């Protein structure tokens, strides 16, 4: 028998979705630059920079949702603190962008960002060293969230903190970081965070072409991350994760160090979330402690739940749909959005346990 026979109906369906997801994103990579940059502004087909940035934001959220689905959907770890990894990645990128401002800040200090001048700091704190270099900053985008996930996960999984306990302490984690980043003494701009970015790698952040470039990068990173996570969950590693989700004790008695599997899934997820944050910051132009708010972390869980957890593509679909709905509603009826979001949480869990893609794939069967 071949490994093809080993595949289940579900994974064959997933293969079919792989094509759809990567295909759609690939088309976006090709079409969006054309519509935004070459189609003239008066045309109905023209994509405004605002729309491109909005789409780019959705893709960042999709990447974040992908990260959550990997741990929640496949391993049963409901993290209510993934916003922390996202924000840390964002801050690492923000620090790079701050250093790129150079002496073009309000105070014109060539070394110190404006808020440090304002706080009357004399020199750059040590943890800001190196962030003028793009490669170093990108390494930090991966390393800082990854390290936090590694340390936190190592403690948590080793001590078998799981289920709702884990959810609650991940929430505590992001809440503690929220409070910490609000403090001016931390050296990350306090309440206001980091903003007023000028350029990335020498490209003007306000320029249309840069925005389109950021969108394309985000889409490509999403395709790559999707492919990597799909590879991971289709491997035996992925089957072990599902087995841990279903019956962790049983896996231990089969000889698996379940904490190691959970830890590495968690670290990978944290890194993806960090990268999503790093891509998000140059597009929206700001990163502040609000990104650490527990509310954000819980909200992103519902994207995954609505889309359909444990599928990967469901997370992407959910993130894009829910955020599109959010944009639409907050434009139309700002007060109503929280009602809609609340209803999504309730209805989603009650009536759509397998999410939207669950509905679709049931029909296909």
């Amino acid at each position, binding site marked *: 028998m071949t490994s093809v026979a080993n595949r289940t109906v579900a994974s064959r369906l997933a293969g079919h979705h792989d094509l759809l997801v990567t295909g759609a994103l690939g088309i976006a990579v090709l079409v969006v630059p054309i519509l935004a940059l070459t189609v003239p502004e008066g045309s109905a087909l023209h994509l405004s920079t605002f729309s491109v940035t909005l789409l780019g934001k959705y893709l960042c959220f999709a990447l974040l949702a992908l990260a959550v689905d990997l741990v929640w959907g496949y391993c049963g770890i409901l993290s209510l603190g993934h916003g922390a990894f996202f924000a840390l990645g964002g801050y690492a990128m923000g620090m790079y962008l701050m250093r790129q401002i150079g002496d073009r800040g309000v105070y014109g200090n060539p070394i110190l960002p404006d808020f440090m001048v304002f706080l009357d700091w004399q020199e750059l704190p040590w943890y800001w060293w190196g962030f003028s270099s793009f490669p170093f900053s990108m390494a930090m985008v991966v390393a800082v969230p990854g390290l936090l996930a590694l340390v936190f996960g190592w403690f948590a999984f080793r001590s078998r903190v799981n289920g709702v306990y884990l959810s609650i*302490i991940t929430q505590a984690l992001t809440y*503690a970081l929220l409070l910490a980043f609000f403090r001016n003494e931390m050296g990350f701009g306090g309440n206001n965070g980091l903003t007023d970015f000028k350029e990335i790698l020498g490209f003007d952040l306000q320029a249309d072409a840069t925005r389109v470039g950021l969108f394309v990068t985000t889409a490509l990173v999403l395709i790559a991350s999707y492919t990597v996570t799909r590879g991971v969950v289709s491997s035996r590693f992925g089957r072990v994760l599902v087995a841990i989700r279903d019956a962790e004790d049983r896996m231990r008695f089969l000889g698996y160090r379940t904490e190691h599997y959970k830890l590495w899934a968690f670290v990978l997820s944290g890194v993806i979330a960090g990268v999503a944050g790093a891509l998000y910051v140059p597009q929206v132009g700001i990163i502040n402690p609000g990104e650490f708010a527990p509310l954000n972390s819980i909200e992103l869980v519902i994207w995954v739940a609505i889309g359909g957890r444990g599928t990967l593509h469901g997370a992407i679909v959910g993130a894009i749909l829910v955020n599109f709905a959010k944009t639409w509603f907050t434009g139309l009826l700002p007060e109503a959005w929280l009602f809609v979001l609340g209803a999504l949480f309730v209805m989603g869990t009650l009536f759509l346990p397998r999410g939207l893609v669950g509905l679709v794939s049931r029909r296909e069967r």
Partner: protein
Amino acid sequence: MHRPVSTYVTFSCHHRIGAALRGGGVQRTLLCLALALVFGGAARASTDGFESMLGELAGKSFRRKSEAIQAIADSGHPAAPRILRALLESRAFFAPESERLLLDVADSGEGVVVDAITGEATRVAFESGRRKIVLNNAMRRLLRSLVARAGLASRDPRERRQAIKELMGRDDPEIQALLREALEIEQARDVRSLLETAIAIGALREDDADAGSDAEARLRAIEALSGSLHNESRIALDGLLTRLESRQSKSSEEEAQIGAIREAIDAIDRRKVGFEILETLFFGVSLGFVLVLAAIGLAITFGVMGVINMAHGEMIMLGAYSTWSVQQLMPHHLESSVLVAIPVAFLVSALVGVAIERGVVRFLYGRPLETLLATFGISLFLQQSVRTIFSPLNRAVASPSWMSGQWVLNDAFALNYNRLWIIVFSALVFAALIGVLHRTRLGLQIRAVAQNRAMARAMGVRGARIDAITFGLGSGIAGLAGVALSQLTNVGPNLGQAHIVDSFMVVVFGGVGNLWGTLVAGLTLGVTNKLLEPFAGAVLAKILVLVFIILFIQRRPRGLFPQQGRSAEA
């Protein structure tokens, strides 16, 4: 019409004689006379003259107003103490377009105004058009001293104490003499010790010239102040120490005094630190009880039913809004509205809780993470509803008078009544809950379902009904927490969000399913937080506590008091 001063003095003292005989005896009457003489000077007064003195207050010149105040005090007019006090507390004003001085009556709410001279209530309760009397700091000082002097002769020991405090640290030898006289007749022990302190402070402040002559007395005064918690004591000791130390050559007596002062100051500082720790503990315990109150409802739903109710914070919020609404409905019964709000808040939150359980949670049993998400959705829904129905803005709930103010034990230690009441309230709620769970049939059924749902059902317990009641009970207690919180902070749509993380920490730290664990955890976290605050600041203290809990959960994943045995495995 001019009457001799003595007539008025006798008159004003006469009405005190009866009281003085009951309280301090004949001596106080004599003191009263002596005071009148001190006050009296050469002042003359008549009703017309008195009115014209009051009229002076409307003027702009601070000097003339000061003179008028002194004259009012010296007049010995029966209305003088009332007027001086009202002036000091900014309750005195002139009616519009008239020379009539009116006083707001303290402690009886707004709108009650009396005539300054006759003390009769009048109906002119206008807000605009009042002409307030502008005072400067020198006038305030003068007023305070005049009021204090009058207070020394009061028959109410509380007023006497207040007066002594006002007089403490004044250099005036006349006042010192007054204080000494007062000491001779004073019988209440606490007032005596206060007088002794005040006299000792006076002794330290006296001129250096004659101080040298009575080094013995000064040493005694220093010793009397050792460990005294009044701010004035410390100031007097510090002052004398600086003066003595700045001397070129010191006599052996002065050296001895310096040593004694140092010791006295040390004793003061030690006691102050002790009281500071006590105060911190009090704040910690009161914060701890707030945490406990906010968390026990959660502990019930989480521990007994295994259900995470993310809308728990909103149950607290609903309780707080209930308190506010009750207060709006009965604006004339501020004192009792909080008491009425207690059952109302409980019922409102409990009913909403039952509705949530019946409508959503019961379909999700055995799926804790889904329950968490669904109840979070409900919490968003409730928050937005409150924003729509009431307002996105915060509402302030007024505190009844029996909950405001402080219980002042000494200059270093005072307890806020609202915090004291909240401790009492939380402790009562906790005790009641323990009582319900361990002494009633319902409690037995709840515990039975918590331990073994299937077995309880087999024994005839209606699981579904118990679930709804349990959820309602937990939510209702959250409503009670809302009543308590409304007395500490403003009521707003985000009130619940602000407390939910803390509540989870308490439950998880204490160990799920153990109410005593919740109590210990809440108090521990409250006290720890407050102990850290002086060193780390409020925010960092909170972060440290969160980090501590995160680390603690790693070591003991099931909290301080874990459930053990097979039932814990489920």
